């Protein structure tokens, strides 16, 4: 059986380190075209490995799967612990998928220092994967921090805007500020474990392992402290309103490839779902936390949408629409019921297709007009009908039209939000309306109507590489929109376990030991 063959094979380590090893190999390649094809090959192999994991993944199960666990720094209780469950496995696939598309997109849009660019991109893929598959909090933090370095270079060296130096520094320092507080939270979790372990004479004195930490009760007062410390880390990264100010700068100034990764992979909200809520259930369901987080989420929905309404630059509009969408995710996370959590998780995945897709569209427009300002567009549907069509499809997904993936996710969130408290839902619904308004208005002004004066008449429609990107994104959007159950089935087990852990008792295991593909 294939399962027996692959049991014990460290596939997650392969997924984790393939890109960075590939990046090291690129170092010795000199020819630019070889660099491009080598990078694409690496990204495709990575995607194949991730698809294999997705196919072998046992759905409807809360168990941690494909576990790899070896001690790393025993003196501090740090281990090298990788695994995926229903919460993280889809992100692994999404990361590999988006990286392939970014490599394809960058094929002819990146013209200088191609090798370094591809190396940074692959290094970024490794660190992002690391965030999703790490189950040891220090290992997670290592990748979380490491991500800053390739991102810094990507924004600084290949960013298009004049303010890119400022944007890169702001991005690094903001994220770092948040994550150092998160590190304190992580250390407190470890100390709590240590106190418990010395009280119960456990073998292990220290542990940063997620599953170990789950098994230890934490006093509510301490949970609150840890929650807010970790909140800062995740909120800066997500970014949750009002910690979002670096996002528009980074997305506007950085290269499109970087924007796709930054906007498409919702690491911050993933962090809430992976670590904060299961580790700190009492704090997460306390009235203070729920109220503050939901209000922040609702503010983000409305603020992001309003700001998006008045933006003339497509990338700035997308940045604010990201803030707005993240508001939905946060509301869903802290409505804390089954539908809302499932909706949040699905929405995070969806944004990887729709928001990232819109950034690709912005990139297509940029390579035609050298800007993403509205003044350079107008009536372009006649010139570039294919581009306009895909812009519409991906855009409608982003505003949640039924039949697209956005609808399923947002609908589940709204359902959950109404169930939790009717006014959460009522305010969130307003966001859906605004969302439709800013997108459709922008679309009308840029694509429909008479031809804009600044639009070049000789503009070509989508090239073959651009078609590949647009079609593959659209397929995913329609697939999740029309037939979401494979995706929901993958999530179900873990989300169910999470809900049980929040609402019933501390000991309900999020990662039960039933199906462990151990060595």
């Amino acid at each position, binding site marked *: 059986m294939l399962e027996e063959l692959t049991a014990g094979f460290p596939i997650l380590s392969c997924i984790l380190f393939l890109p960075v090893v590939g990046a090291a190999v690129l170092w010795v390649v000199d020819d630019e075209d070889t660099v491009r094809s080598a990078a694409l090959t690496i990204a495709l192999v990575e995607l194949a490995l991730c698809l294999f994991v997705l196919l072998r993944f046992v759905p409807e199960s809360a168990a941690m799967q494909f576990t790899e666990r070896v001690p790393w*720094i025993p003196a*501090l209780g740090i281990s090298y612990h990788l695994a995926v469950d229903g919460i993280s496995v889809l992100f692994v696939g999404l990361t590999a998928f988006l990286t392939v598309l970014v490599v394809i997109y960058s094929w002819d849009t990146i013209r200088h220092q191609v090798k370094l660019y591809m190396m940074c991109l692959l290094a970024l893929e490794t660190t992002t994967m690391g965030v999703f598959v790490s189950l040891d909090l220090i290992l997670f933090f290592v990748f979380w*921090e490491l991500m800053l370095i390739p991102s810094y270079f990507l924004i600084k060296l290949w960013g298009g805007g004049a303010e890119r*130096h400022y944007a890169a520094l702001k991005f690094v*320092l903001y994220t770092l*500020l948040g994550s150092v507080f998160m590190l*304190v939270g992580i250390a407190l979790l470890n100390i709590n474990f240590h106190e418990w372990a010395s009280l119960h004479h456990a073998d292990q004195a220290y542990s940063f392992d997620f599953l170990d930490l789950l098994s230890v009760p934490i006093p509510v007062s301490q949970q609150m402290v840890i929650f807010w410390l970790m909140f800062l880390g995740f909120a800066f990264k997500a970014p949750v309103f009002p910690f979002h100010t670096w996002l528009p700068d980074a997305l506007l100034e950085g290269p499109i490839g970087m924007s796709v990764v930054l906007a498409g992979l919702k690491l911050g909200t993933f962090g809430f779902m992976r670590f904060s809520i299961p580790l700190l259930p009492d704090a997460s369901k306390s009235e203070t936390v729920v109220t503050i987080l939901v209000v922040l989420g609702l503010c983000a929905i409305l603020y992001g949408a309003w700001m998006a309404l008045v933006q003339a630059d497509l990338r700035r509009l997308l940045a604010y629409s990201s803030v707005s969408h993240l508001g939905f995710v946060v509301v869903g996370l802290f409505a804390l019921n089954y539908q809302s959590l499932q909706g949040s998780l699905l929405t995070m995945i969806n944004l990887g297709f729709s928001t990232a897709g819109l950034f690709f569209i912005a990139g297509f427009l940029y390579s035609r007009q050298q800007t993403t300002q509205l003044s350079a567009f107008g009536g372009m549907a006649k010139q570039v009908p294919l581009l306009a069509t895909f812009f519409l499809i991906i855009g409608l997904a982003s505003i949640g039209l039924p039949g697209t993936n956005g609808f399923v996710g947002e609908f589940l969130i709204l359902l959950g939000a109404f169930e939790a408290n009717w006014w959460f839902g009522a305010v969130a619904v307003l966001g859906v309306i605004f969302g439709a308004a800013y997108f459709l208005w922008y679309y009308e002004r840029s694509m429909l109507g008479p031809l804009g004066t600044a639009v070049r008449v000789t503009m070509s429609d989508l090239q073959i590489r651009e078609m590949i990107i647009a079609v593959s994104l659209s397929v995913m959007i329609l697939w999740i929109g029309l037939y979401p159950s494979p995706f929901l089935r993958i999530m179900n087990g873990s989300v169910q376990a999470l809900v049980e852990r929040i609402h019933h008792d501390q000991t309900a295991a999020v990662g039960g030991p039933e199906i462990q593909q151990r060595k």
Partner: protein
Amino acid sequence: MIFSLNLSFSDLLLLLPEIFLTCWLCVVLIVDFVSPRLPKEQLAYLSVAGLVITLGCLAWFDVNHISGALFGNMFVLDRMAIFFKVFILGATILVILSSVEYVNRFTLFRGEYYVLVVMSALGMMFMASANDLLSVFVSLEFSTLGFYILVAYLRDDLASNEAGVKFFILGVFAAGLFAYGISLVYGETGQLVFSEMSSAQATPGLIIGFLLIFAALGFKIGAVPFHSWIPDTYHGAPTPVTAFLSIAPKGAALVILLRIFLVALASFKPVWVYLLVAVSIVSMTYGNIVAIAQRNIKRLLAYSGIAQIGNVLIGLAAGTKMGSDAILFYLLAYLFANLGAFAVVIAVSQAIGKDEIEDYRGLNRRSPFLAFAMLLFLLSLAGVPPLAGFIGKLYIFVAAIKEGLYTLITVGLINIVISMYYYLIVVKQMYINEPIDPSPIRISAPIKTVIYVGLAGTLVIGIYPQPFTDWVVEATLMFSNFVTPAATALPTTVHVGG
């Protein structure tokens, strides 16, 4: 006090590394004298050979668990002393290797340079074993004597002379404070050996005495407010000497601080923790904020060194076995990153002749290897995972959080963000800006070796730290018995900030 000087052969064995190195020092001096035509590189390699043999001897001690005390406990050879001796020897070897080319800038006495470096190292090895106040004083002055000369070695360079004079005046002042402190402590307790002071009562004389001693050692490690000599001395001194000064004396002074605070003053922990917290906070904040404004890479590293010492003092303030483990580990990480960074500085200044941060423009185009090495060293200093500096900071923070030093931790963490800012300024110059002169930079073989060792240390300690954590945990076993009662009593007695 009566000293018995009946030395047996096995007693001499404990002194073997020091005795051997003293003899070797004379050999180097004689070789330099009798064959003046010998290329000075050979002297460097000869010194390194001696240091490596000493290192081997210490490794043998460590493996065979050889330990003991001599001269009525004035000189101890315990696991911690061995750790610090290895640390100092390692630093000295790397410094000598990075000096090989630089020495050509000296007009006179090129051979004596190596002798002086090894002599300082010898003094610091004695410091690592010093277990009473008198032997600390003698060995401290012995090692500093070499540094007084080394700092002013560029005879025709005004900055170097100024650095030498500043270092000398302040150093002598610190020595005076130290001697006065010793006299007060001896007057109050009648004891000089650390382990026999633990039952002392807190009298005003004792407190003032220890404050004076702390000030003198604070001068050595360059903690605020005893840091004023650091920027000018680092800036003016020959760069390899700066590198030496930035790491080895700090290690040697820290072993004494560890012995004083965790052995002699263990019972006063609830009091001195406030002193250390204050010095640590001020050092980190001052060092990092002033570093932002620096235009010279040596000054930048000087201020970053002040901030790093603030981090080390967090571990000392924790005052536990785990805290001392963390200090030792942090110093190891700092050794590789800091000496590596200085090696890059030396390589660049060999090519360009200057040390301004502006001169690092486009270093990536001129020498991708140097730029990448510098990037890793700076990131390790900033504490970015998975490099050695990150594990060091983590270790220190975990030790301090365990003791409830939340205010200190918060300040430390905010300082990480500030430090990232100025390290990134250098990174930006290297990677983003275009070089003015794009010619490639040639790197000499010894410097390249130092950089490779630095890179290997930074990466290996970061990625596979287990052997090193095991080593430091064993090196500080002597503190484990004292920590157990204090650690359980602490959370109720000390809550700084909270």
